[in-house]
């Protein structure tokens, strides 16, 4: 009797440990994009997902490089590796691949295609917890000359099913408020350095708020081992309406799944096989205007944030004096003016007092 219970318990534990790998799946397909000038680009992709869709790895094969992004639920790591042909063309034959690490499950610094594929297949873990704010999926702004691209908020979000929460429909609306909401998000400070910059940006672009800038729709889906997955989807990007110019479709992304297998990767985080130049966005301090630290991974492991060497590097970067006098978090013109007036009044106070005192003394002597 005891043996049977023991076997059952061990079986259960084994199932729990192996489940994500046993029942995981790999989606293979293509993502094409048509730009406003009719240019078409197609990339092939492979998205490996755990059974509960909480862990993922997306590989995108561009004509000249390969991006691999993956998440273990806590952090998202990406490796971008250039093809030999591309390296030869640039005459840098031994270029070291670039890597990035961000907190959370959204590959915020990855390329547009990586992020769109993440939204389609791997955003379940993000939407299980929240819906907003999510940084913009596409790089390069949303139609106006924005210093940042993080100005789209999601509305009318619907899911394929409400357990796994993969989107079937979503509208992206222009929102300057989103920039303010995301001040803790690393990549806003990347371009909008100062609070005054953010406020100015919001002031200048508020007129575009609530315009539809993107529309995501799943047109075909399938049930694979009990999980609903998109088979075909579109993401249409629109330009912002301007005076005398009608809103137009800027570009259309079309994703199509070719086949799905039950393969699973050894690890959902990209495997580090060689040295990597890494930009680690987990080490950020907006107040000190430090967005990331850069280092080289040489031990073939993704480092944890407890790594003493990284913490020392981060601390030294925070303690560095500012490289330029521009990085002041709350300095608007009025505040600087007030500070200068206070200082000027203090500086001039003594000479004025001395002048009055001398004048008074002289007049007393004359009497």
């Amino acid at each position, binding site marked *: 009797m005891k043996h049977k219970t023991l076997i059952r318990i061990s079986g259960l534990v084994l199932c729990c440990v192996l489940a994500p790998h046993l029942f995981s799946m790999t989606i293979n397909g293509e993502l094409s994009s048509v730009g406003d000038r009719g240019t078409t680009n197609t990339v092939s992709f492979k998205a490996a997902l755990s059974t509960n869709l909480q862990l993922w790895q997306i590989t995108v094969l561009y004509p000249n490089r390969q991006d691999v992004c993956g998440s273990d639920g806590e952090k998202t790591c990406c490796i971008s590796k250039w093809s030999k042909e591309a390296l030869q063309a640039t005459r840098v034959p031994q270029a070291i691949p670039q890597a990035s690490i961000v907190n959370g499950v959204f590959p915020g610094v990855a390329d547009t295609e990586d992020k769109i594929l993440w939204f389609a297949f791997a955003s379940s873990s993000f939407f299980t917890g929240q819906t907003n704010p999510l940084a913009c999926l596409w790089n390069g702004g949303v139609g106006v000359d924005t210093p940042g691209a993080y100005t789209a908020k999601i509305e009318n979000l619907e899911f394929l099913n409400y357990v796994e929460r993969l989107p079937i429909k979503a509208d992206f609306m222009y929102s300057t408020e989103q920039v303010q909401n995301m001040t803790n998000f690393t990549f806003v400070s990347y371009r909008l350095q100062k*609070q005054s910059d953010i406020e100015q940006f919001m002031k200048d672009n508020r007129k575009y708020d609530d315009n539809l800038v993107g529309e995501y729709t799943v047109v075909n889906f399938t049930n694979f081992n009990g999980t609903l997955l998109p088979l075909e989807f579109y993401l249409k990007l629109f330009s912002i309406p301007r005076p005398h110019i009608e809103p137009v479709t800027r570009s259309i992304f079309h994703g199509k799944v070719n086949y799905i297998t039950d393969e699973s990767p050894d690890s959902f985080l990209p495997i580090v096989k060689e040295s990597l130049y890494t930009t680690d966005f987990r080490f950020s301090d907006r*107040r*000190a205007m430090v967005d990331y630290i850069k280092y080289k991974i040489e031990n073939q492991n993704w480092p944890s944030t407890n790594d003493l060497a990284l913490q020392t590097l981060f601390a030294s970067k925070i*303690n560095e*004096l*500012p*490289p*330029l*006098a521009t990085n*002041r*978090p*709350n*300095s608007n013109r009025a*505040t*600087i003016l*007030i*500070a*200068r007036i*206070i*200082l000027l*009044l*203090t*500086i001039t*106070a*003594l000479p004025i*007092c*001395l002048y009055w005192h001398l004048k008074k003394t002289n007049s007393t002597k004359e009497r």
Partner: protein
Amino acid sequence: MSRNQPQLFERWFQQFIYLAGIIFLITGSAKVFSATGTESVLSVIDPIIKLSFRNLFLFAGLVELVIAFICLFTKQIMLNLALVFWMAANFTAYRVGLFLIGWHRPCGCLGNLSDPLGIAPQTADLLMKAVLAVLLIGSGSLFFYGLKMNKIFKYSSTAPLTTNET
């Protein structure tokens, strides 16, 4: 009020002025010394005064040295107190300005001398805040107390502080 009291106050006042003079001598020398360095931070533009830190260190350091010499080598007690109070008030106003604009870096009040001395910039900043508080409160209270004393002794037989030649 005893006749010895003005002399006693005067001695205290003079001791405080010497202390302030020594402090300004040290910080002023540190600033002037730092201004001659080659650190890249010296070319950074100060957020309030819009001068490079090199020029700012040089200017502030020279003013501090001048005040230090006046404090150490003249006996004009009220003038010296006024100068110390003025300088301390200027530094306070500058720090208030930095705080207002959100500049949370350590103030370079010791120039870059904290590095060779082996003091962390944050510790040096804290130390200078304490010194500034002592100078501001000390000189301010003594100066205004001295003004009051002068008014009292103006009508008494004892000479006022400002004209003491001993």
